[in-house]
């Protein structure tokens, strides 16, 4: 009759963790490739409106952002609660958009300039008046490709 022979002492064998760093590094590289660095500090509160028929922005490097919304709480003492335009890192007015667009154009390579998209990130409670002003200004600087930023929502 065969016998089961117990080898050595019982107890948990230690787990081989030598490949753990490799796994973590892989994760790290995955995140490094798929994400972008946060470049601007948000100064306005933006809750994007919901939409269902949204499309992805194809070239993120070719887009510039215009944030419109109420200033964040810590800035409300200085700027009030009216909706304001944020370009890059500071509050701006509609008249500054021209310079902003020109500067953004400068940054893109020559071949890609025509594909530049201006993404309008506006809060859902903003009135259309300010958006219309922005749109008119964009038309004047012939930055015609725009995108109304929205988050995916359900059909009601």
């Amino acid at each position, binding site marked *: 009759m065969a016998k089961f022979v117990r080898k050595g002492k019982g107890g948990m064998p230690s787990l081989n963790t030598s490949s753990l760093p490799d796994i973590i590094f892989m994760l790290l590289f995955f995140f490094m490739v798929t994400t972008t660095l946060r470049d601007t500090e948000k100064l306005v509160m933006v809750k994007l409106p919901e939409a269902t028929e949204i499309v992805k*922005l194809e070239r993120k490097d070719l887009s510039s952002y215009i944030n419109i919304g109420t200033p964040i709480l810590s800035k409300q003492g200085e700027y009030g609660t009216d909706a304001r335009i944020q370009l890059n890192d500071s509050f701006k007015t509609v008249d500054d958009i021209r310079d902003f667009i020109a500067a953004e154009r400068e940054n893109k390579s020559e071949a890609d300039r025509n594909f530049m998209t201006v993404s309008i990130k506006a809060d*859902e409670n903003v009135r*259309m008046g300010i958006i219309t002003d922005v749109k008119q200004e964009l038309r004047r600087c012939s930055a015609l490709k725009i995108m109304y930023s929205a988050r995916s929502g359900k059909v009601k």
Partner: protein
Amino acid sequence: MAKRGIQEINAGSMADIAFLLLIFWLTTTTMDVDKGLQRRLPPMPETENQTDIKINQRNIIVVKINANDRLMAGGEALDVSQLKDKIIEFITNPTNDEKLPEKEMKDIEGFGQYPVSKGLVSLQNDRGTSYDSYIKVQNEIVRAFNEIRDDFAMSKFNKKYAMLDETQQKIVRDAIPQSISEAEPKDVGKRK
């Protein structure tokens, strides 16, 4: 003297270092993909005396949103939920109604003749309209066009629009152009 083997480097903390890097990266980056409704603005008219493009009255549906976010399309007050069907009916014009847009036989590359609707959706808003309802209306209009395209793709290619290949998508886009016009602001009274 005793011979010593090459000592192994203790790599036990390597995982911790990698974790630290990973967490640093996770907190400093964003992963939100930018999504939204893409539009092309009409170029600014070069001169003052703008050439009037005569568009037949029947070819245009005016969608208006007022300051109280109330909607009017084609002369009647509507709810946002009704807008999509209204626009589908307007653009497709299934019964060839006299009051709805005319169709023009166009030669589409790689497909042949197809009656392309001349319909145009014109969207007008007030300065007091909320952005939320504006986007909702924009969304409904795009949804109407997407539905028409899907129907067309379904009947001709037996596939949804999104499933078609590049050339077929172009055919569908040519057959059903997304003609939305964001009108000049009517109430921009004072200019700086």
